[in-house]
């Protein structure tokens, strides 16, 4: 029977100099870190760079992790700050959804398949691409809240927000996602089913 080693145990082992513990932490969180990085920086190449930087920073500052929050919250805070640094350095003119011109254009994916399985896949893909079209803050907060199941308190820690600000941002992110889905993915979402739609 496979036994899952807890994050705390892996951290202790890593701090004691065990190289395999570092590797296991990377393997365990590479998809989470990469996905969140991708939500922020919007392209895979930069996301790889940011994700690698995150793990480097995680290793360097691991001794500072005192366990007063969840390890994932601490890790995602590193992802958020690393991604923001990356954006500030490389893309100071990044556009938000509030801007008139959107840089991303969508290809026509064709009509959705009749089967419900494929339809769900289509909706999933549409949702995925719609999130990719959001600003990094909107995409980040939606990913953290719905996909990574971080509480609003934890999101406040990660993104350095007040509770009311986090609530407002989450609400606006949902509304913008709805708007993107209705505008660009009518076929998959049919308007009234978009998240946040009345």
């Amino acid at each position, binding site marked *: 029977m496979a036994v899952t080693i807890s994050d705390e145990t892996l951290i202790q082992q890593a701090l004691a100099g065990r*190289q395999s513990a*570092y*590797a296991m932490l*990377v*393997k365990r969180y*590479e*998809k*989470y870190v*990469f*996905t969140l990085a*991708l939500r922020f920086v919007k392209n*895979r190449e930069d*996301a*790889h760079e940011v*994700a*690698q930087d995150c*793990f*480097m920073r995680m*290793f*360097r*500052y691991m001794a500072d992790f005192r366990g007063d929050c969840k390890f994932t919250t601490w890790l995602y805070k590193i992802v958020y700050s690393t991604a923001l640094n990356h954006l500030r350095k490389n893309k100071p003119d990044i556009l938000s959804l509030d801007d008139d011109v959107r840089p991303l254009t969508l290809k026509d994916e064709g009509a959705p398949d009749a089967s419900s399985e494929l339809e769900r896949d289509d*909706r*999933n893909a549409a*949702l*995925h691409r719609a*999130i990719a079209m959001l600003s990094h803050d909107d995409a980040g907060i*939606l990913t953290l*809240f*719905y*996909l990574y*199941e971080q509480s*609003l308190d934890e999101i406040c820690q990660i993104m350095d927000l007040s509770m009311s600000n986090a*609530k407002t941002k*989450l*609400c606006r992110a*949902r*509304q913008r996602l709805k708007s993107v889905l209705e505008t660009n993915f009518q076929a998959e979402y049919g308007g009234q*089913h*978009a*998240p*946040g*739609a*009345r």
Partner: protein
Amino acid sequence: MENNFLLTDDMLWDYADGILSGAEKGQVEAYLQRNPEWQARLRLILGEKEELSAIPLEAPNPGFADRVMAAWAAERVKIKAAAPGKDWIIRLIALVFVLFVLAPAVVMVVAALQLSPAEESGFSIPEIPVSEWSAAVQSPFFTYGLLFVTAFITLRFLDKIVQHRRLAQQLA
């Protein structure tokens, strides 16, 4: 009061997300009981929430973890290399300390060997060499030695501070 309450879609989302306060939650629940059409909307929202939480994670390119580990190994080597002289300073201080502790013993042994026992008679008790510690303390050897050790300890301390700062800058 409750009759004036008007449920909005955003509020229903907040309710589904579990981020409403106790009073707001109560109002929404009462409203939902009175308005079954909103219950259907709530079910829809819960389905959409499920979709949002079921988006598959993106996988990095194959070999990503190996590259991270290689970068980490390289960084550790770099950090070690960025702290040259650490070992030789410690060894030198240890050597000076050992010499300082052993020096009086060596002096005593040398003094004892220079004695000339049994020169006139066949039997005599060798004299026990007596060190004049006050003279030793006032000697330039002791004074400069002490200065030397103090200087090394100070340098070692400064070296630690500089290394720590350099490391902190690298990590920042």
